[in-house]
C-alpha cells in the first residue's frame, strides 16, 4: 500500500523547489570536489550548471522512453514506470557529471526488469543496445549495485497503472452516466507516458496521478467526471481533502502540458561539455578507470571507493568522500 511505503516516506517530496534544492546541492558538491581551482565566475564555462544538467537529463528521459518502447521482447508498462522512478531518484542525489546518464539509464532499466519480474537475461538485455555489447554488460553489472545503494534499496515502486485499472472498474460499476469508459484508455496512456517525463512521480501519490490521467482523458472526450470524484470518491471526506486533490490534479495536468523536448542543438553542446568535465574515475573509457578495475581484480580486499550513502533523510544527504575521490 502506498500510504505505508518507502516511496511515500522517503521519495515523495513536498514541492518542486525541494527537488531543485537537492539537484543544485549535488551539482555544487561535484564542482567543489573537482574544480576548486577554477574561480567562481568561470566555473560554469567548464562545468554544467544545474539548468544544463536538468536539460540533459530530460533528453535522457526521452532516450529512456524510446529505449523501452523499442525493447524486444516488448516490455510491460510497469517496468518502464519503475525504470523512470529509479532514474529520477538516482539523479536526485547524484550529479550527471559524476555518473553519465547513458550508463545509469541502461542500469535502471535492467534493475527495473528484475524488480518487476520481467525476466530477461543480461545477454538478451544488451542485445537491445547498439555498440559494444560486452562493454555494455560490464557497465550495467558494475553499476547495478551502485544504483541499488543510491536508491537506498527502496526498490518497490508504486506505479499509477494499477490505480488506473481500479478507477476504470469503479467508474464502470458505480458511474453509469459515462458511456463506454474504455474509450478513455488511449487518452490515459498518452497522459501517463508524458507524466514520466515530469517530476510528478516524485511529488504526488500514484493514485492521484492515475486520477489526473482519467480526468484528463475524460475531458478530452468531452465528458465530465467531476461528479464521480465529488459525490462518490470524496463523499465522506471533508472539503479540505477535496481541495488538496483538486489542486494536485490541476498541478499534474499543468506539468504534463508543459512537457516539451529540449532543443537538439543545446543538448549537443551540453554533451560535449560533459565529455570534458565528467568524473573520469567513473568513465569506463578513461585510463584511470581501467587502472582501477585492474587493481580491483588484482587484490580482493580493495577499500570501498566512491560515494556512499547509508542513511536517507529529507534534510539533505551527506556524501562520504573517499580519499581517492577528492
Amino acid at each position, binding site marked *: *500500500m*502506498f*500510504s*505505508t511505503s518507502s516511496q*511515500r516516506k522517503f521519495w*515523495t*517530496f*513536498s*514541492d518542486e523547489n525541494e527537488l531543485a534544492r537537492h539537484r543544485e546541492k549535488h551539482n555544487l558538491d561535484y564542482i567543489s570536489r573537482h574544480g576548486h581551482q577554477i574561480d567562481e565566475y568561470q566555473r560554469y564555462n567548464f562545468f554544467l550548471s544545474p539548468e544544463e544538467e536538468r536539460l540533459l537529463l530530460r533528453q535522457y528521459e526521452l532516450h529512456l522512453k524510446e529505449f523501452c518502447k523499442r525493447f524486444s521482447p516488448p516490455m510491460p508498462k510497469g517496468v518502464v514506470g519503475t525504470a523512470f522512478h529509479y532514474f529520477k531518484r538516482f539523479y536526485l542525489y547524484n550529479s550527471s557529471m559524476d555518473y553519465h546518464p547513458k550508463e545509469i539509464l541502461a542500469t535502471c532499466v535492467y534493475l527495473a526488469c528484475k524488480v518487476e519480474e520481467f525476466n530477461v537475461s543480461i545477454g538478451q538485455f544488451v542485445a537491445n543496445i547498439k555498440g559494444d555489447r560486452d562493454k555494455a554488460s560490464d557497465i550495467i553489472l558494475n553499476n547495478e549495485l551502485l544504483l541499488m545503494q543510491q536508491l537506498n534499496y527502496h526498490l518497490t515502486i*508504486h506505479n499509477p497503472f*494499477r*490505480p*488506473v*485499472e*481500479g*478507477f*476504470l*472498474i*469503479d467508474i*464502470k*460499476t458505480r458511474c453509469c452516466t459515462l458511456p463506454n469508459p474504455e474509450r478513455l484508455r488511449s487518452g490515459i496512456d498518452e497522459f501517463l507516458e508524458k507524466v514520466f517525463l515530469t517530476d510528478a512521480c516524485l*511529488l*504526488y*501519490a*500514484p*493514485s*492521484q496521478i*492515475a*486520477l489526473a490521467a482519467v480526468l484528463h482523458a475524460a475531458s478530452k472526450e468531452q465528458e465530465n467526471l467531476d461528479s464521480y470524484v465529488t459525490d462518490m*470518491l*470524496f*463523499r*465522506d*471526506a471533508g472539503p479540505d*481533502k477535496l481541495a*488538496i*486533490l483538486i489542486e*494536485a490534479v490541476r498541478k499534474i495536468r499543468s506539468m504534463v502540458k508543459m512537457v516539451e523536448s529540449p532543443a537538439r542543438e543545446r543538448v549537443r553542446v551540453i554533451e560535449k561539455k560533459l565529455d570534458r568535465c565528467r568524473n573520469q574515475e567513473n568513465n569506463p573509457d578513461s585510463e584511470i578507470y581501467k587502472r582501477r578495475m585492474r587493481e580491483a581484480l588484482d587484490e580482493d580486499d580493495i577499500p570501498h571507493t566512491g560515494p556512499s550513502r547509508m542513511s536517507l533523510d529529507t534534510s539533505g544527504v551527506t556524501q562520504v568522500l573517499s580519499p581517492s575521490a577528492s
Partner: protein
Amino acid sequence: MDDQACPRCKTTKYRNPSLKLMVNVCGHALCENCVDLLFLKGSGSCPDCNVPLRRSNFRVQLFEDSMVEKEIDIRKRVLKDYNKKEEDFATLREYNDYLEEIETIVYNLCNNIDIVGTNKRIEQYKKDNKEIIMKNKAKIGREELELEEILEIEKQMEDLRRAEISRLEQEAKKQKIREKEALIDELMFAEGDAKDILNTFAQSIAKKEEVDVVPIVPKVTQFSTGVKFSRGSGSQHNVPVIEEGPLYKYEAPIIPDRCGPDPPSIQNIINGGYLHHVRAENETEKAGGYSSTLPCLRALQDAMAGLYHAS
C-alpha cells in the same frame, strides 16, 4: 617389558618407546601402526591365524601374555549370557556345577578344544534360558548404575577433603609468615628483653593453633528433595510442570491508514457488480486457486490509497 615386540613389523619397545600392542578376540598381538595399516578398511584377517577381525574390537594389551587377553575376551562374552546369580539356584551344589560349566566352556574356547560343540552348547543354553538372561541383564544394569553413583559420591568427598587440606595448608603458611614479621617488628621496636618477647610469641601461636579448626563445608550434591543432581532421571520420571499463562486472545490486525477513501470490501465486490468489469477466471485458473475477486480488490485498493496524500 624390553622384549615386547610386534610380531609383524618386529618393532621393539626399546626402539620405539611409544609402542603400543593391541589384541583382538583371537589373542594375537599387533602394534598400533600395523593395526592402522592392515585394518584401514575397518576389517581384515589376523596375520597369525587368518581369523577375520574387526578393527573396532582391537584394544590395548594389558597383560604380557596375550593368551590372557584372549581369555578375558572370551570370558566377557560367555558371562554376558551365563549371568545367573546364586539366588537363581535351589542348592549350592547346583550353583557350583553351573560355575564349573562356565569354566569348562571358557577353557575349551581358549585352547581350541571342540569349539563347534562348545558353541552349540552356548546356543542351546541361550535358547533355554532366554527369559532369565534378560531379567538378570536388566538387574545387573541397575546394580552397575547404583555402584557408579556410590563411586561418584566417594570421588566428590575425596575432592572436597583434598581441597580443604590444601586450603588449610596455605592458610597456615600465610599465618606463619605474618607471625614471623610481627615478631621481627616487635624485636626491632620494643624495648623489653628479647627473650621475653620470643616467649610470649611462642605461647600465643600455640594457643591459636588449638582454636583454628574450621568446619568443612560439604559440597551440595543433591536437591533439597533428596534427588541427586546427575542421575535422578534414570529411576524417577518427573513430568515437568508447564506454566500456564493467560489464554490467547484474538486481536484483529491493525489496518494502516490508507490515506484515501475506503475501498469496497470483498463482499461488496462480489455483490456490487464489480466483477462484471474484470476478466473472469477460466477453468485452469480456478483449479490453481485463482479468483478474479482479489486482483479486482487490489486494483480498487491501489486506486483509493493515497488519494488524500498531501505534500
